[in-house]
């Protein structure tokens, strides 16, 4: 089992992801350079947070033209696990691997704080060790995390059970006050229809050890390991 963490020019959370996989989970992990044209040998690919290509034009827009993204696209279409965190989520929507788009936060401010996420489905390779409704305390740090999809796309996402995490209050209620960025239906993370690609704005890589304030993010990485062991 080998994890890969892609580095784009402007990525800045690749070391957090690498550390979480290697030191917290104790699993093999290597970096993948954005100029690489293959992800052969990897069982899961993580697109980390940051500001790939300076977020110029639109967040994630230029990263999708990196050579590595063609390989990631193939890998995802063959069922490989592809996990985009924060900027990685933005890249996955721009690349068309996930539906929707991430707009500027409604408050226009960069928001950096802990959020409660309600686990909406356990039927994904990213949530198979949780129980449905499980609250996770995981931090966000973004200026463009406002999830948007048109009415038809949103209905499909909801009907297919593709919403994995929603911003909630400490009691697990989905309220407007608990929504940090204006995301439709408080959506914090979604999977694709085949459920092998996950994108989420909050950072499990920053919350996989108690010493960091929360170890809830570890459950997501453990689920991935669990899914890979099963296959």
């Amino acid at each position, binding site marked *: 089992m080998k994890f890969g963490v892609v580095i784009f020019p402007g990525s800045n959370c690749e070391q957090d992801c690498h550390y979480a996989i290697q030191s917290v989970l104790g699993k093999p992990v290597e970096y993948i350079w954005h100029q690489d044209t293959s992800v052969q040998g990897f069982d899961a690919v993580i697109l980390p947070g940051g500001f790939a290509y300076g977020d110029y*034009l*639109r967040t994630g*827009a230029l990263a999708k*033209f990196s050579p590595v993204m063609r390989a990631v696209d193939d890998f995802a279409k063959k069922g490989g696990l592809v996990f985009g965190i924060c900027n990685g989520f933005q890249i996955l*929507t*721009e690349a068309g691997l996930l*539906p*929707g*788009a991430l*707009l*500027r*936060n*409604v*408050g*226009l401010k960069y928001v950096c704080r802990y959020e409660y996420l309600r686990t909406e489905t356990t039927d994904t390779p990213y949530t198979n060790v949780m129980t449905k409704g499980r609250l996770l305390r995981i931090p966000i740090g973004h200026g463009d995390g*406002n999830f*948007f*999809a*048109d009415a038809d*796309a949103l209905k499909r996402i909801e009907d297919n059970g593709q919403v994995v995490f929603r911003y909630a209050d400490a009691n697990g209620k989905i309220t407007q006050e608990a929504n940090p960025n*204006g995301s439709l239906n408080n959506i914090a993370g979604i999977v694709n229809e085949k459920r092998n690609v996950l994108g989420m704005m909050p950072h499990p890589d920053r919350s996989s050890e108690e010493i960091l304030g929360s170890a809830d993010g570890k459950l997501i990485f453990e689920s991935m390991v669990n899914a890979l062991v099963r296959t």
Partner: protein
Amino acid sequence: MKATVIVTLKPTVLDPQGMTIHRSLGSLGLTDITDVRQGKIFNLQLKAGNREQVEKLAKEVLTNPVIEEYRIIWE
């Protein structure tokens, strides 16, 4: 030849930046302006007759079709 590509959010997409600009107009007394939508402009220089490349750039790079639309002004 020149081309100007204007990219704007679709009318159905919330524009928090435009709304914020609009809200600040009241203090200037510009109350007849009823809405503000923010967008982007790209000025391109090209060889004559190469319109297809501009269309491709506008469609596949400059615009995210989920949230944005574009129009091109040729001169």
